[in-house]
């Protein structure tokens, strides 16, 4: 288990890991509430997180460890196309600015904790509530598994082998999330985000000087793609619509997830969210520069067994071992924050929109907190088992479908904030058709996120999630129109 471990790197890694573990447990006493045995406290940190805490929490939660590994890996593999994460994480913020303060206000006034609560409040439909909640849980599970993959890559880069370190790290995470709730990831996010900032700033400042500057890095990447005969530092004509539609679809889906919504609901107010929509793009700048590590991998002439190794290998090759250890710790700790918030978001959904509705309607606030704590534990164990027992590709495929699924909850969650026109059967029909149709398209395309449509003038590939959303909205509108006509016809017949 301990072959090829660099002692300096390992010492730095271990020290930081112990630090955040301590913080995770101490967090239960941070901004101490009267009781943690209430979902508003355990699951939303008291809805009192101000601008800075929200910035660190949402930033730590949305830009995940897997992102740090996978975006540069995709850029390394395919080039410009992998950069769709950049427009995606820019246009998401005007959307957050416009929509999320409205959602927060509704949630605060009526005591809602989840998207399912909001939908039930708006439409009074148990069916739609269950649909939205179940979609949230299903889409989140593979996302947690992805964080484990990110952590696995960091632990492996450190030279540790076998599954024991991963299992230990995750059990520790499960324990402090159980005891401290959302306060734990919120507090750890400070450390995680500062570490990631240090790592990325060091990389973008120091690596180019070792590789001959940014111009040389782009030239090297260009040459590598030309030699490979695939990919490139610009998009091919066929990649243009996929690029734009993936960016748009991902941006619309991003804040429908339980973990991002939890960060929104936990904030102290509309202006906190608006200020964050202004300040969170700092992380996007970081992500854009981080993506360039993929090209730096080409410039450094790395030989990789797997694309996911590009970031760790770059740090091992170009930095002293203690700093590589720091970088790997940043990635591993970076997995803890989103994994914790995701499991809390999923647990909140299960408790409020399944347990309380279908199992125990008379559950007390303390009982709710208890159910959520246990659920958060089970969700994490489930994700861990999925990673240990099933092929990695399974989690990646499910995560892809998860993005498509969660996007189908947008009409139910968002339209009701502005319009009083849709009825719950129409939205439920749209959700079902979007979800089933989208999954079927993705399945028939070999679980690729793009679907080709023939417009007569040649085929154009579009992000399947966006197609499914369009189908969803069309069905919802048509069913709603049909439902509105029916009673009128009956009335006019009775009048005649």
């Amino acid at each position, binding site marked *: 288990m301990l072959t090829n471990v660099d002692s300096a790197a390992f010492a730095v890694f271990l020290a930081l890991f112990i630090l955040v573990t301590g913080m995770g447990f101490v967090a239960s006493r941070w901004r101490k509430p009267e009781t943690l045995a209430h979902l508003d406290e355990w699951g939303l940190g008291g809805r009192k997180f101000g601008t800075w805490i929200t910035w660190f929490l949402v930033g730590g939660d949305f830009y995940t460890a897997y992102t740090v590994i996978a975006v540069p890996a995709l850029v390394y593999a395919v080039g410009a196309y992998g950069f769709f994460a950049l427009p995606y994480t820019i*246009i998401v913020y*005007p959307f957050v600015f416009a929509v999320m303060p409205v959602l927060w206000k509704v949630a605060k006034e009526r005591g809602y904790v989840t998207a399912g609560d909001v939908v039930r409040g708006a439409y009074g439909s148990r069916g739609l509530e269950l649909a939205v909640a179940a979609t949230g849980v299903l889409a989140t599970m593979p996302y947690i598994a992805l964080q484990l993959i990110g952590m696995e890559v960091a632990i492996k880069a450190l030279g540790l082998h076998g599954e024991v370190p991963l299992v230990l790290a995750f059990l520790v995470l499960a324990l402090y999330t159980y005891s401290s709730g959302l306060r734990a990831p919120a507090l750890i996010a400070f450390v995680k985000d500062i570490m990631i900032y240090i790592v990325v700033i060091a990389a973008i400042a120091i690596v180019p000087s070792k590789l001959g500057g*940014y111009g040389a890095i*782009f030239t090297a990447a260009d040459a590598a793609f030309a030699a490979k005969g695939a990919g490139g530092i*610009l998009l091919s004509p066929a990649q243009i619509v996929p690029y734009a539609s993936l*960016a*748009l679809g991902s941006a619309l889906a991003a804040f429908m997830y339980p973990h991002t919504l939890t960060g929104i609901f936990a904030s102290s107010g509309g202006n906190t969210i608006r200020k964050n929509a*202004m300040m969170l*793009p700092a992380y996007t*700048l970081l992500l854009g520069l981080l993506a360039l590590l993929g090209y730096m991998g080409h410039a450094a002439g790395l030989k990789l067994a797997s694309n996911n190794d590009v970031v760790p290998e770059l740090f091992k090759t170009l930095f002293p071992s203690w700093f590589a250890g720091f970088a790997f710790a940043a990635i591993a700790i970076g997995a803890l924050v989103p994994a914790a918030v995701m499991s809390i978001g999923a647990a909140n959904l299960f408790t409020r929109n399944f347990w309380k509705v279908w199992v125990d309607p008379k559950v007390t606030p303390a009982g709710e907190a208890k159910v959520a704590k246990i659920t958060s534990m089970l969700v994490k164990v489930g994700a861990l088992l999925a990673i240990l027992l099933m092929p990695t590709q399974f989690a990646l495929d499910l995560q892809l479908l998860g993005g498509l699924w969660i996007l189908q909850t947008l009409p139910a969650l968002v339209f009701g904030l502005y319009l009083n026109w849709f009825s719950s059967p129409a939205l439920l029909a749209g959700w079902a058709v979007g979800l089933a149709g989208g999954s079927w398209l993705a399945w028939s395309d070999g679980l690729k996120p793009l679907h080709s449509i023939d417009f007569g003038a040649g085929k154009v590939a579009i992000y399947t999630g966006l197609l499914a959303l369009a189908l969803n909205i069309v069905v919802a509108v048509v069913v709603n129109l049909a439902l509105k006509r029916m009673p009128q016809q009956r009335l006019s017949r009775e009048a005649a």
Partner: protein
Amino acid sequence: MVRLLLLLPFIGLMIVPFYNIREPHLFGFPFFYWYQLAWVPLTSLLTYIVYRSVRRAD
């Protein structure tokens, strides 16, 4: 009306053929890269302008 400024990043980033080019370079970055990176501070700025006009709303 100021809120319409929030649509600019969508327009600027969805017109992919406009920026899918190499020249002009800036600090060694092809246009494709620095154009998109430039939208990050620009979006923050636009959001700030809108924020100033709506922050008293609630």
